[in-house]
């Protein structure tokens, strides 16, 4: 598969726990100013993939193969101190779990001061002013109160926006955002999405966003990737992936989106392979309504199904 040299290149990355492989060889590339959307089944390895890039894997998980390059820097070879300098400034991370990412014994203001002063020379007052301005743009209506608050004094969606603001404040080159709008109502979500896209317009920031909200991905991203069971099973321009999906799992996912007329389809029966289960063929085959005999035998590789559009399916 051809791979253009981008801002971030993930090359056949593999992540394992003590017992099983969790990310089973994922490749993707993001250029400057590009927004890449990633969707996929709960538990398929999206957060693990992002954490491998930021080198924030929890104890017990480690990269066992593949390569990671950010703007020509080999991330896997970078010493921890170099990684710390990069992370938080040029490359930032919005964790899926805001509560875990924020420190409950420190105010929001203290979080901003730490981020802004460890990565740049800035006075306390100016830093807090910038933080307040950014938070106001994310629809946090009383930034003074938010800055003085501890995370446990804020709502789920407020903490999520604090985390997004912390990831945006240094105007990074790349934001890795893991479900950044899952705790936001539609109106605030629209505002936050607009601000994130504004960072791209103004500073050519790239964004890798993981979201279960296909509407958000359709609105924000140029490219959409779909993961299943530790593998990237489809990727391509959003119009093709959502309009002419090449993988049956992607089709099932789109069919399961509830609509405002009260329709909702339970489109995939059964469960994904359990951890450590080995399958000779396509991991989706046992649940696939379109499975062929070949699907149980050999794993399908990504192959081109349209212009820049790839799917890992024998039937595609």
């Amino acid at each position, binding site marked *: 598969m051809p791979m253009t040299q981008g801002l971030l290149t993930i090359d056949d990355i593999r992540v394992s726990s003590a017992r099983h492989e969790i990310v089973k060889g994922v490749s993707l590339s993001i250029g400057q100013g590009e927004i890449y959307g990633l969707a996929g089944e*709960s538990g398929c390895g999206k957060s693990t993939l992002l954490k491998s890039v930021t080198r924030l894997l929890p104890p017990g998980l480690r990269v066992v193969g593949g390569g990671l390059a950010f703007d020509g820097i080999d991330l896997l070879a970078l010493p921890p101190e170099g990684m710390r300098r990069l992370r938080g400034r040029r490359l930032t991370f919005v964790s899926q779990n805001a509560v875990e990412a924020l420190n409950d014994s420190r105010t929001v203001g203290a979080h901003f001061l730490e981020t802004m002063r460890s990565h740049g020379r800035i006075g306390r007052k100016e830093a807090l002013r910038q933080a307040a301005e950014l938070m106001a743009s994310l629809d946090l209506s009383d930034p003074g109160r938010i800055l003085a608050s501890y995370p446990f004094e804020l709502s789920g969606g407020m903490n999520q926006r604090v985390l997004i603001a912390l990831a945006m404040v240094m105007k990074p080159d790349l934001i890795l955002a893991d479900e950044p709008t899952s705790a936001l109502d539609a109106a605030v979500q629209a505002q936050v999405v607009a601000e994130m896209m504004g960072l791209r317009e103004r500073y050519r920031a790239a964004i890798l966003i993981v979201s279960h909200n*296909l509407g958000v991905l359709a609105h924000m991203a140029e490219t959409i990737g779909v993961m299943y069971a530790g593998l990237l099973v489809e990727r391509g321009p959003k119009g093709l992936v959502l309009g002419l999906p090449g993988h049956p799992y992607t089709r099932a996912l789109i069919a399961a989106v509830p609509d405002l007329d009260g329709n909702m389809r339970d489109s995939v029966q059964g469960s994904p392979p359990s951890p450590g289960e080995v399958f000779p063929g396509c991991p989706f085959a046992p649940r696939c309504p379109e499975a062929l005999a070949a699907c149980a035998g050999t794993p399908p590789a990504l192959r081109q199904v349209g212009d820049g559009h790839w799917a890992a399916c024998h039937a595609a």
Partner: protein
Amino acid sequence: MGEPILECRDLRVTFRKGNRLIKAVDGVSFGVEPGECYGLVGGSGCGKSTLARLVTRLRDADSGTVWLEGRDVTGVTGRGLRAFYRKVQMVFQDPVASFDPRKKIGQSIAEVLRNFGLAERTALRAAINGALEMVGLSPEHGERLPGQVSGGQCQRAALARAVAVRPRLLICDEVTSALDVSVQAQIVSLLRRLQGELNMAIIFISHDLSLVRCFTTRLGVMLDGKIVETGPAAEVVSTPKHEHTKLLLSSLFPVPRSAPGP
């Protein structure tokens, strides 16, 4: 209609932060019928989770009362509270924090089952695995710590623990926000089944208006601590009356639908 399973009367909570007063819940009254699914939507920070905490007795209201099956439970403690949690269970917005980080997920589920005498010692393992399977997890996930499963897996584990009690009322605070839409559909099917089997009522808090429209029968819209619009879910969504409801509905990002597969 018969006697409501739950009734809240004029609940109020004000937080003080510096010189600001935050009226998080500002005079909320509503009732839920047995077996009904009541949806609660509203902007981020409007007071939904705080209201849920008042209903589940995790926080005291400044004023107002909570009634369960016709009895005032506003001040219950001790044995009364235990009996209350046998009937009322909640799944929190932040599932990771609702588990003890040092205990395996299966252990946490076992504790709830033992607490309420819901499984014989010898049948405990089977009951835990049954609860996990119901939400699409395997026994292996029960052997892990809450920090060793994915966001959506932890959310489902929290749901498994709550429904294992077979409550009369289940409060779900953003219970599908970390799930992809296909697993979400499976979870909604599960909740519908339990609703029927146990005549379980549900208060379903969610930012996803399409999902709330599909799943709930009645719905309340909150703004700044107050319920500003309420009615049948289909009606509120198709003909919203309040400006805030209209704003929420008009802000949705549509999903471009594909042609159906072969």
